[in-house]
Each structure stands twice: as structure tokens, then as C-alpha cells.
């Protein structure tokens, strides 16, 4: 029983990330509206980013900004005292790229609506086959 509890405490974060990721995937597969699909895509992205950032987390460590690092400084830095900065760097890039793609996708949605007067996938398919 205690082992099960310890397992749950150690892993619940990962399970919830997977639930979140699957919500995004479901929205991308099954939703009919293009805007909803985009929101699903963003949820998927944030779930992956969450996973990466949580890998870098360490219990009992502090932020990845060296304390008193500005100016002269001679204290020895222990790596275990600071949270791993590498996943943060990679994911910072991912977030900014995601907002850029989101903007372009919104522009495409507006263009599609201008031409076909709808954003629903099935209606779009009908409009396309009419022409």
C-alpha cells in the first residue's frame, strides 16, 4: 500500500501531463472546427513543454539564477542547488515559435473564412467539391 502511494506521489505529474496531451490530440483528431483544432494543437504543445520543464525540476533546489552573481563573486557553486536550466532554454524557444505559428494559422483561418464563409471542416469539404 505504501509503495503504491509512493509511486503515485512520484508519478502523478506525468500522468496528468499525458491526460492533457491526449485532450489536445483528441481535439486535433475529432473536432470539426478549425479554430478548435488550433486550440487543441496549442494544448498539445503546452503539455510537451510541461513535460520537459518538469524533467529539469529538482527537489530542494532554487531558481536557475545565481544568487549574488552580479558583481564580484567567489562562492563555490554547487550544481545540485540550482534547477537544471537546459530544458527551460529549449522550451523558451518552443513557446515563441508556437505563438508565431499560431499567428500564421489565425491568418490562414481568416483567409479561409473570406473565401468559403465557413470554418467547419465538413462544410468546407462540400464547398470544395462544388467548385
Amino acid at each position, binding site marked *: 500500500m505504501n509503495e503504491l502511494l509512493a509511486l503515485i506521489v512520484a508519478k502523478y505529474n506525468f500522468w496528468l501531463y499525458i491526460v492533457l496531451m491526449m485532450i489536445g490530440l483528441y481535439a486535433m483528431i475529432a473536432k470539426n472546427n478549425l479554430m478548435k483544432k488550433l486550440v487543441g494543437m496549442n494544448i498539445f504543445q503546452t503539455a510537451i513543454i510541461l513535460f520537459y520543464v518538469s524533467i529539469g525540476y529538482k527537489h530542494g533546489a*532554487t*531558481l536557475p*539564477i545565481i*544568487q549574488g552573481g552580479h558583481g564580484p563573486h567567489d562562492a563555490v557553486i554547487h550544481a545540485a542547488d540550482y534547477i537544471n536550466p537546459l530544458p527551460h532554454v529549449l522550451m523558451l524557444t518552443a513557446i515563441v515559435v508556437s505563438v508565431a505559428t499560431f499567428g500564421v494559422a489565425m491568418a490562414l483561418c481568416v483567409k479561409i473564412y473570406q473565401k468559403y464563409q465557413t470554418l467547419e471542416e465538413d462544410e468546407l469539404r462540400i464547398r470544395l467539391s462544388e467548385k
Partner: protein
Amino acid sequence: MIYFFSCIAVGLCLIMILPLYRCLMGPTVLDRLVGVNAIGSKTVVLLLLIGYLYERVDMFVDIALAYAFLNFVAVLAASRYFHKRKGLYEESFME
């Protein structure tokens, strides 16, 4: 004292359930907007409290300030929609 701060932080998290309920179930879009605004104002304090838990407040004040400002922008943008387009239920409840 740090323990007390974390208790306050958990309490704030639990209080957030009520606006979140309004945000998820709200009968109209504007009710959701009210819920988001309330969540935003609680989160500003929560960020500062997390800063005290890490004992690095000076790093978190910037985020809280940016957060308060962007909450304002988002709420303003969403409510400006209704200044330009009429009708609360306009299209979504037609069918």
C-alpha cells in the same frame, strides 16, 4: 512563517475553485470573463507567495507585474468585442 505562507498559498488555490466554476459553467460569455478576471487577480498574489517560498521574491515581482498588465489587456480585448459586434447569443445558439 514560511509554513504559514505555504498554507495561505494553498488556501488561495482552493478559493480559485469558485471563480473557475463560474468560468467553466457560466451561462453567458461575459460570466466567463468575470471568472477569468477574478482568477487573474488571485494569481498575482499567488506568484508573490511562491517567490517567498523560494526566498527569491525579487525574481517573481517582475512576473507578477507583467501578469497583472496582460490580464488587463486580455479582458479589455475580449470585452471590446461586444462594443463592436452586437448580440450575446448571436450565432452559437441559432441551431
